[in-house]
């Protein structure tokens, strides 16, 4: 296969957010299922080497280089590697600890607990050295990668693409699927509130002070899904794959300002009334959007009940009504994001509830 052919293949795989997102989810599941295999140092190092090799190869491409070497984006590339490492490290330790527990041995952290070291030099000296080396890194970085002043902001001409700071690109990606008040206000607030609520929801006493996967599978999987898939992957989307007009581009594709994507999204009400019932849309908004309301309310009210009766029965019993209610609300909201994305990709669904009269759309 030629180099161009390979690049083309990659580009066509990366050509839509749905493939990339769903593939990431699949990969996420595979990694968790075969976590024992993937955390072996040899495997992890091989994967890291493969990713580095891919970057090295890809850097020969002008379009890829243009995006990756942009001074703003360099730290994000670095972050991806750091993230890989810091996901691998605790998982590896957790597996080892789980093995020890299975054999009836104490966890690593337990054995370390009794040892004591000197503040100087074992702590402070190391900190000093870290300070020196990190200062060195920052100084060199600031010399090599300049941060230029751009043009004065012009209200008549927005930069294309207009991108948020990299740490907000996940939020910006949500704007594709949700109205600003959800993607920009409601969901971010809920993320903060949800994180604050964790200590009160989490009543699992295990895993304090040591790494373990077996004893806290639910908490770890939920966190990793929320962080890696719903936050980091969306930042990667926003940084590397979203180009002019917020269109989706393959990593080797030229960011053509004139690229056009079809605009064919429809609302749920249009599906129901026009497509299935064959009538025109009702004039009154409540009649028109009633199915959306039923769906949303059902999602948040019926689903918890069903889950509490079936697969989450044990959890429900352990947590009690209030904890369960809060937890399940947060969970469903979190899952609402990928669900809406899939609905959009699969059915071109624009909004479940669309009431432009009140600027209220979900």
């Amino acid at each position, binding site marked *: 296969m030629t180099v161009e052919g390979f690049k083309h293949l990659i580009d066509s795989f990366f050509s839509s957010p749905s493939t990339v997102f769903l593939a990431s989810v699949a990969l996420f599941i595979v990694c968790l299922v075969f976590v024992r295999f993937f955390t072996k140092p040899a495997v992890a190092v091989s994967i890291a080497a493969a990713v580095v090799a891919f970057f090295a190869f890809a850097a020969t491409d002008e379009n890829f280089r243009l995006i990756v070497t942009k001074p703003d984006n360099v730290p994000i590339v670095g972050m991806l590697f750091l993230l890989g490492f810091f996901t691998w490290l605790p998982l590896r330790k957790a597996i080892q600890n789980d093995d020890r527990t299975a054999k009836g041995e104490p966890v690593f952290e337990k054995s370390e607990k009794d040892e004591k*070291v*000197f503040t100087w*030099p*074992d702590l402070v*000296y*190391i900190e*000093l*050295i870290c300070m*020196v*080396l990190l*200062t*060195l890194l920052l*100084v*060199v970085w*600031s*010399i090599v990668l300049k941060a*230029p*002043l*751009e*043009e*004065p*902001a*012009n*209200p*008549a*001409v927005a930069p*294309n693409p207009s991108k948020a700071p990299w740490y907000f690109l996940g939020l910006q990606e949500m704007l594709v699927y949700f109205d600003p008040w959800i993607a920009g206000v409601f969901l971010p607030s809920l993320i903060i509130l949800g994180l604050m609520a964790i200590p009160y929801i989490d009543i699992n006493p295990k895993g304090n002070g040591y790494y373990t996967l077996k004893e806290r599978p639910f908490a770890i999987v939920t966190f990793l899904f929320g962080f890696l898939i719903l936050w980091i992957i969306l930042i990667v989307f926003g940084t590397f794959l979203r180009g002019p007009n917020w269109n989706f581009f393959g990593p080797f594709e030229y960011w053509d300002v004139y690229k056009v994507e079809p605009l064919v999204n429809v609302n749920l009400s249009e599906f129901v009334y026009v497509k299935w019932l064959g009538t025109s849309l009702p004039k009154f908004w409540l009649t028109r959007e009633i199915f959306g309301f039923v769906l949303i309310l059902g999602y948040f009210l019926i689903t918890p009940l069903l889950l509490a009766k079936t697969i989450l029965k044990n959890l429900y019993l352990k947590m009690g009504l209030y904890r369960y209610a809060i937890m399940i609300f947060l969970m469903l909201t979190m899952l609402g994001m990928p669900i809406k994305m899939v609905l959009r990709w699969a059915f071109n669904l624009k909004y479940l509830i669309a009431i432009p009269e009140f600027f209220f759309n979900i």
Partner: protein
Amino acid sequence: MARGGAYLRNISKLNVLFGVGSLLLFAALLVMIADDTVREWKRYQREFNRLEVQKTKEQLESADAKVDKEKLTQLTRQIEEAEKKIAGQKDQIDAVQKELKQLEAKIYKTNQEYQFTRSYLSVAKYEYEEAVQHGDEKEVREWKEKLDHETAKETQFKKELDQLALDKQEKEDRVAAIQSEKVALKEKVNALLKGKARFEKKLKNIKPGFRSWILNLPMLDFIAPTRKIKQVVVEDLKEDYHFTKVPRVDRCMTCHMGIDKEGWEDVKQPFKTHPRLDLFVASTSPHPMNEFGCTVCHGGSGQAVTFFDTAHTPDSEEQKKEWEEKYNWKPQKFVEEKMLPASLIESSCLQCHNDGNPITIKDAPKLTKGKELFEDRGCYSCHAVEGYEDFRKLGPDLSRIAGKTNKDWAAKWLKAPLAFRPDTKMPQFFDLSNTSLPEDIKKNNAEIAGIVDYLYKKSGDFEVPQTYQGGDAQKGKELVANLGCMACHAVEDWEGTDFGPDLNSIGSKVDPSWLADWVKNPKHYWKETRMPSLRISDDEANDITAYLMTLKNEPFEKMAVPEAEPAVVDEMVYDYLVSQHGTVMAKQKLDAMSEDEKRLYLGQRAINHYGCAGCHNIPGFEKAGKIGVELTEEGSKDPHTLDFGNIHIEHTRQDWFKTKMKNPRVFDKGKVKGRLEKLKMPNFHFDDEEAEALTVYLLSLKKSEIPSDMKELLDERGKAIVEGRRMVNDFNCQACHLIEGKGGIIKETLADGMAPPSLNTEGAKVWGDWLHSFLKTPSTLRPWLQIRMPTYGFSDKEATELVKYFNAVDNQKFTYKSKEDQIPKPSKEQWEVGKQIFDQFRCVQCHQAENIEDRNPLELAPDLGLARERLKPRWIVKWLVDPNRIMPGTRMPGYWPDFQSPLPDVLGGSAKKQIIAIRNYLVNMDLYEESKSSKNDDKIGPKSNFTTGRRK
């Protein structure tokens, strides 16, 4: 755990890590300082300093070479001698100087005491005043004593000081007297070395040395470096940051260090002198750097100090390549208003000089040309632009076209205007780059046929007073050559003008009866035409027609007439109908139409689509609007809003404009578009130079951010000149006449002495009322000329504007004083002297109106009988003094060369008195004439010699 080996980590390894880390950090800090210190502009300043030192050294050497060495040696020797003399009196000088030193010490001490006393005195004054206002008697008395005491002391010290000063002066004088000879000599030496000293001083200032090295060291260079960023802050010309406006800060001169200095014309950039110091940058120019900065004209980022950040724009492909190699140039994305390339810089002038004042923008030839082209080719017909609202329609009236030419001609003309007339102003609408596929050409032909059908169907009847009966083509040819037709029209070999249409193909176009009528009275067919009447008789008209009908364009006549295929007409009519009625209605309407109706409809829609009515008067389109984009602020349009299509050029306004001008349809290349979506601007076939001139003009059409007091506003005179020039251009006056030093091309087609007069100083020369009536109804002034001043049919307003123009050009002040009062009245004696001189010089020999048939036209001049009515007395004087200065090459002799009179006996030989006398006679010829005994002012008028008939 004990020390030594008992730590968790290996301390010696940590030490190494710490040591290496610290050294690297130190190195990084050094690199940081270096990175901060090494700046592009410093390199240029160092280089400039080197060049300046070198230059100053050269100047110093040449100044040194100019010094009179011999004299210098002599002076030096004299000084030595004088010094010897002084040495003889050394004891004396030493003694005086010793005394002086003591004296100075004493002065110092006394002065100090004096100052202290004054200080106490101030206190005493204040306390005494306070005591008088608020204190008791005792206090008043005490302070009064104190005040008196201090006052006395002060007076005493002052006296002493004055005396000491006198003593000192006396001693100094004594020393000076001994040294006076030497001092005088030294002054002479200084005078001799004055030129050199200037450069020595300069060299000392700019030459790098230890001091400047220290001052420019990193971390010390914040104090007073010799290399530093230079800038001007222009308060009045703000920079728009969209949310706020800030004073403009331009630092260009940080690198362009020779920009305001003469003598740097031949060095390399960035040190070159500004090419127009007379106009810009220099403090004596109208645009000094301190008041205007640089970027208000040049664009670019004024605050930046690197080649890249300032957003330099290359002027050509070669320069771009050169810059790419030399400076690693690439387009600067972050500056919105990038620098203008040098060749387009004139587009900045209009932002202040936007009153359309051609006087001040005469130094902007490209801009002027662009503006002229814009007006000449009728860009305003389709594109609305502020200031062009009341411009006339450019093309001929088509409301009665059936009387002028035939349908076949019209169709072929629409298809290929250039094939008929290579220099026509009519642009090409069809068969262009986006409509040249075979199916497009079929559609083009259908539209052409439709347009012609429409025009002829709607054409009104045109009745000529008499049909053309034939004439003498040879005579006609002479008439065309002599009457002045060639001032505006190119005919046969004559290509000196393109003002009116080239007549070389006219025989293939028009109906002869129409032509005969047109030649006689152009306004009969087209009311607004600029073609004037030359007062042509019926016979002359027939002869001219006979001649013009012989000028044929054979290849054009043989061209196939574009035919419309019915199927294509159907398709296009359907397309047009759909755009208005939707598909179903369109189908119904189409089916209901006859073939004729379809073509008529297609023609009407095509005329509307292409905006023909912008230039032509077409029945049914009396209220048609402009079809193009408004261009009033085109020059500040964001390049993102311009569609560059698949054309790979720089995404800048200027590149887009230039490319568009050369081929208006080019941006459709490679695009899938329906017929009606395609770009429709016609092709004007502009060459590179014209495209560039238009680009300059388009760039100049922008929102002006200049405060009104910085703009140039026209006064009455300026306005009159602007308005007049527009008329002069509109009526092509300069084809025949020299006006403001320009024009008179018609001369090339005429025999010597047969050319129309120069109008230099016309405003100073003739009376406004006379000019006004002449313009409205021209009379014959120079009966020997065959060429005729046309009758333009000026309105009173137009004639007034032209008179105002001529007066403004010659800076004539308006006065309410009547003409009669302005004409001087001589005494009888003076009058008689005038007449005597008049006869003596035999003025009438040339200045006469009769018996001119066999005379050499070069020896003929206007009838002086008109002088009173026509000429301003003041001008006559100037003219008589030196005719050649007013009209170079005139045959009128100057009788008073260098103010020397050839008539020493008349009026004491005074040239001035003689000139006044003859002038006064000229404007009062009949005043004391014996046949006219009446002295009534009202009846005075130079009628006796006034023989010219109105209209020849």
